């Protein structure tokens, strides 16, 4: 199936990506080319084949519930675009 402009706008919204209107056709075309490529998979019979999520079929390793990391609040906050009183600052969410 082929994606139209409004499909691509919806995908961009889901991905929280601002795409300039002028670039929208180029993205639609590229996405359709890529989907055409991946649609080659649909011709393959995969009945009864177990999906492979991870090459080593590993299980999640657990550790003791103990504090192992030092407090780096100031170091990490220094990387943020905007902070106030030890918190990350974003535009007002609730009026």
């Amino acid at each position, binding site marked *: 199936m082929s994606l139209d402009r409004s499909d691509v706008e919806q995908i961009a919204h889901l991905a929280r990506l601002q795409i300039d209107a002028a670039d929208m056709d180029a993205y639609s075309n590229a996405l359709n080319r890529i989907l055409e490529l991946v649609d080659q998979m649909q011709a393959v019979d995969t009945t009864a084949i177990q999906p492979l999520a991870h090459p080593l079929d590993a299980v999640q390793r657990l550790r003791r519930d103990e504090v192992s990391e030092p407090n780096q609040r100031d170091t990490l906050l220094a990387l*943020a675009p905007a902070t106030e009183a030890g918190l990350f600052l974003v535009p007002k969410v609730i009026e």
Partner: protein
Amino acid sequence: MFDLTLAELARGLQGGEFSSTELTRAYLQRIKTLDARYNSFITVTEEQALAQAEAADAARAAGAGGALCGLPIAHKDLFCTQGVRTSSASKMLDNFVSPYDATIVSRLKTAGSVMLGKLNMDEFAMGSSSESSYYGAVRNPWDSERVPGGSSGGSAAAVAARLTPAATGSDTGGSIRQPAALCGITGLKPTYGRVSRYGMIAFASSLDQAGPMARSAEDCALLLNAMAGFDPLDSTCAERDSENYTAALDQPLTGLKIGLPKEYFSAALDAGVAEQVHNAVAEFEKLGASVKEVSLPNTALCIPAYYILAPAEASSNLSRFDGVRYGYRCAAPVDLEDLYKRSRGEGFGSEVKRRIMVGTYALSAGYYDAYYRKAQQIRRMIQQDFINVLTEVDVIMGPTTPQPAFRLGEKSGDPVAMYMEDIFTLSLNLAGLPGISIPCGQTRGLPVGLQIIGHYFAESRLLNIAHRFQQATDWHSQIPTGVEV
């Protein structure tokens, strides 16, 4: 001095022929003079390099120092380096100074290596040409009108141009092996889980693996000795004992069984590449190996499966870049959604946005079974093909890439044409297997790479096979025309 390998430089330092400070100064000067041609470095860390070199010289004088004591290296710019910008070649992280070291960075530091700087790459490691970097395209030292490959193109170009004796790279679909092939150097992608991913900026977490890029298999073994091994900070790191990868380098190849997959030698393969690969295989026969044809029937399916799985994982991994905690933030956001959308829309380049959108679509409600689940089933089929063949033969050999280095701009307008570049490398990431690319000849004045694929955790064997080839031939010591040493 610039044509010496890591192993040779180590002997020079040991024998007192030069100090690490002298060596480091010389490389820093060379980068300053020559890198404008290649654009292989994003950041040169002169001050830290000289401090590390002095410390290495002092350690050596005191009879101490690790296995890589005083040897200069450089890191792909997606490995976190404490106090140094770590950009992943993206506007999104142009202002990001990492608060910590990646595990491989700290291990290589502990072994005594000196960091010259951070290397250019495709943005967030998404690409096969190193043209999508926010800092501009990298150029191939063999022909500056051609790409060095990608995504570890800065690493490969810098090693080929003798701007650093060795580098780190990362490989999600061929990003160590393909640029190594196109620049005429040696690059190893270890088994998934062999090397810690902690502090490596994530692209597709079930495929990503870090590895060494250098001028010889011996140098890659020296680097892997420091890089590999269990790390509790990476939950997918394999719980296995460390190995000494240099110990088995000289083992004879008598009795080695090599499989050549018929699907890798189709009519679409460049004739010059095919010829050089066949010559290399003949060399291995002279070294005592036997050769047979094998089949990996699902080879062509690795591209569609990969271009669902990798973007799906990427769309999830890259959701962390939201303009709130670190990285780029757009100017004057009107509300939170505007902040997210414009920070991401302005901070990411077009290939990264395309892949995030493909992944978002593949994971969106109603499409999961048709795309993501289907791709994971094909992933199992591809893995099974390799497991079957690796019971018949010890290693699989073939070309690393379908053609030698292509021209800048030749494929950058068409993502699908670019994706085809990785047809021989992607499947190893899907299966999690190790592979090494070594220079095995030249066609039209450009290097050709031979890929050697082994069973899980067979890095030692791959390095041994590559080393014996490099003892018998001199393709790995060819210097690009125009690169003075």
